[in-house]
């Protein structure tokens, strides 16, 4: 008899790991989403503190995501900006929104700028905060996305020079594009990874939303993003002994026009995505509410290793959850669970929750997954009525939580 794997105490994390290891779980896991602006809004903390203070940012995420009842915590600020900002990129700061790169004044205008910029200094701007963020997450909320977060190379280039220029380079100026990727990987991102590693953060993920489809085609992703992610990962592993997963969300199928949905293109995107993230099929930021989930199920069951279903990491579209009624949210999740969860392998989350999303919609989504996604999945899900969720207002609930002090204090002027 083989030994059972030692399961972590945290039941949410156990659910996630169970799905990834094809083990039985009690219900479909609902993972904490990227939700920095929304968490800031719920917690009513000022942007100028929240986006500069790692402890506040982490505690706000932990508190808000626990209030909702997610199985794991995902905490990240405006992570696409850190490297560009530290290299001297001009930024716009605001009282009530995340910092944003001033694309009027791009950091990289030409090849000459690469020499001028030199190597990222990890003591500059919010890089130390980013390192601290990774450390705090590992301590306070271990989970699939605990650790460091960096901006992947193509997304970095889009932040540093603008998407059209970055695109022009990879399509029309290949030698220059190689120089750009080399700079992004080795001068901008690697020093940040080294700072993480030096501080004990030995795993990091690199979101890469600019490499989603149709920003880039699967062919361009294969030509540029996949090799770049491999190079960076190899260097981090060999020189720092750390795991650096660049390219998260690359090749995510984000076609907005439902009439253009194409099964062959979707499959190609998912296949390309699995070359970067072989652990799961990533269907996240697009109009997932309009997808034919039978296509996704077909893909997962035909593309898993050793005849097993490939785990699906599926995101509820952020605009959908903001704009839909609770009934529509429940109906969507009922359909998804019915088609995708019966044979396991389903992880649900939300793609970047908009700041003004109603908390009722999110609580409703959680309740729906908790009730409809319980294993074994009921034969007839339509017979299960999901009653409206009951929940304390955030401030009332927060009073008894360990994060209360830091959040209430942050609200003071």
């Amino acid at each position: 008899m083989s030994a059972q794997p030692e399961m972590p105490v945290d039941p949410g994390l156990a659910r996630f790991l169970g799905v990834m290891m094809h083990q039985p779980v009690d219900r479909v896991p609902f993972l904490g989403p990227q939700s920095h602006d929304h968490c800031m809004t719920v917690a009513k903390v000022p942007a100028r503190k929240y986006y500069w203070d790692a402890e506040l940012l982490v505690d706000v995420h932990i508190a808000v995501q626990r209030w909702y009842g997610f199985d794991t915590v995902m905490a990240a600020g405006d992570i696409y900006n850190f490297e560009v900002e530290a290299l001297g990129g001009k930024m716009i700061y605001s009282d009530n929104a995340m910092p944003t790169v001033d694309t009027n004044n791009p950091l990289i205008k030409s090849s000459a700028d690469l020499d001028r910029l030199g190597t990222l200094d990890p003591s500059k701007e919010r890089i130390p905060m980013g390192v601290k963020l990774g450390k705090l997450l590992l301590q306070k909320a271990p989970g699939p996305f605990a650790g460091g977060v960096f901006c992947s190379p193509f997304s970095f280039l889009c932040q540093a020079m603008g998407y059209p220029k970055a695109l022009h380079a990879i399509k029309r100026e290949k030698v220059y594009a190689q120089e750009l990727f080399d700079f992004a990987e080795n001068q901008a991102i690697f020093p940040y990874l080294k700072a993480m590693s030096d501080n004990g953060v030995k795993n990091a993920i690199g979101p890469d939303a600019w490499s989603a489809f149709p920003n880039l085609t699967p062919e361009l992703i294969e030509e540029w993003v996949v090799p770049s992610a491999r190079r960076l990962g190899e260097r981090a592993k060999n020189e720092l002994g750390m795991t650096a997963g660049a390219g998260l969300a690359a090749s995510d199928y984000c076609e907005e026009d439902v009439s253009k949905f194409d099964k062959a293109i979707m499959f190609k995107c998912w296949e390309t995505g699995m070359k970067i993230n072989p652990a799961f099929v990533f269907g996240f930021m697009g109009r997932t509410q309009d997808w034919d989930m039978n296509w996704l199920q077909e893909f997962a069951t035909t593309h898993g290793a050793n005849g097993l279903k490939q785990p699906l990491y599926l995101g509820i579209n952020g605009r959908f959850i903001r704009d839909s009624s609770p009934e529509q949210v429940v109906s969507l999740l009922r359909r998804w669970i019915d088609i995708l969860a019966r044979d396991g392998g389903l992880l649900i989350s939300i793609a970047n929750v908009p700041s003004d999303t109603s908390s009722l919609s999110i609580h409703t989504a959680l309740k729906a997954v908790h009730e409809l996604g319980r294993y074994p999945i009921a034969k007839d899900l339509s017979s299960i009525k999901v009653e409206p969720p009951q929940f304390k207002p955030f401030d009332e609930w927060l009073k008894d939580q360990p994060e209360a002090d830091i959040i209430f204090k942050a609200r003071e002027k």
Partner: protein
Amino acid sequence: MSNEKYQAISTAVTEGEDIQTGNLVKAALDAGLPPLEILQQGVVAGITKAGELWKTNQYFLPDVILSADAFKVGMEVLEPQLKNSQAGQSRGKYVIGVVEGDMHDLGKSLVVALLTSAGFEVIDLGIDVPKDKFIDTIKTHHPAVVGLGAYMSTTMLQMKEIITELEKQGLRKGLKIMVGGVPTSQEFSDEVGADAWGKDALDAMQKALQLVEVK
């Protein structure tokens, strides 16, 4: 002969060959071809074709971006010559900008290219545009349509403030308002009281044409 030149310009724009487009437009002007014909049968035909290919999944965003770049280069060469010949051809003024605090201009740049190709006189206020600048420009130029863009779910909330201010100042009459950008949706557009939501650049152009036609 002129048809061949127009076709070459059109193909260069469709294929996103920016340098070639500029050279071909210059050569056509040097050959004495009418600027308006170069515009319509060359440059606009090229970007329109790119839009059609995009709609049928034969072109993707990278292709359209390069086409828009080539379109822009062609227009830069043509614009000084068009000033006179285009008089009276406009479908109306279109004021466009990305709201304050938001620096993302990719979508807006595409919309500007397509609106120009559709015959609008576009007044591009750029990015990070304060509410008062929208209001002042509308007072000065009396556009047919104003387009508000945002990329972040925090900054998009300013669209409602701008629309409310336009109503308060009595500027809404005869003015159509469009919203667009990644976090926006039809529901959001309805909620803030806009006349139309541009799902993407091509959709924005088509909706803008519908808005000015029903006036």
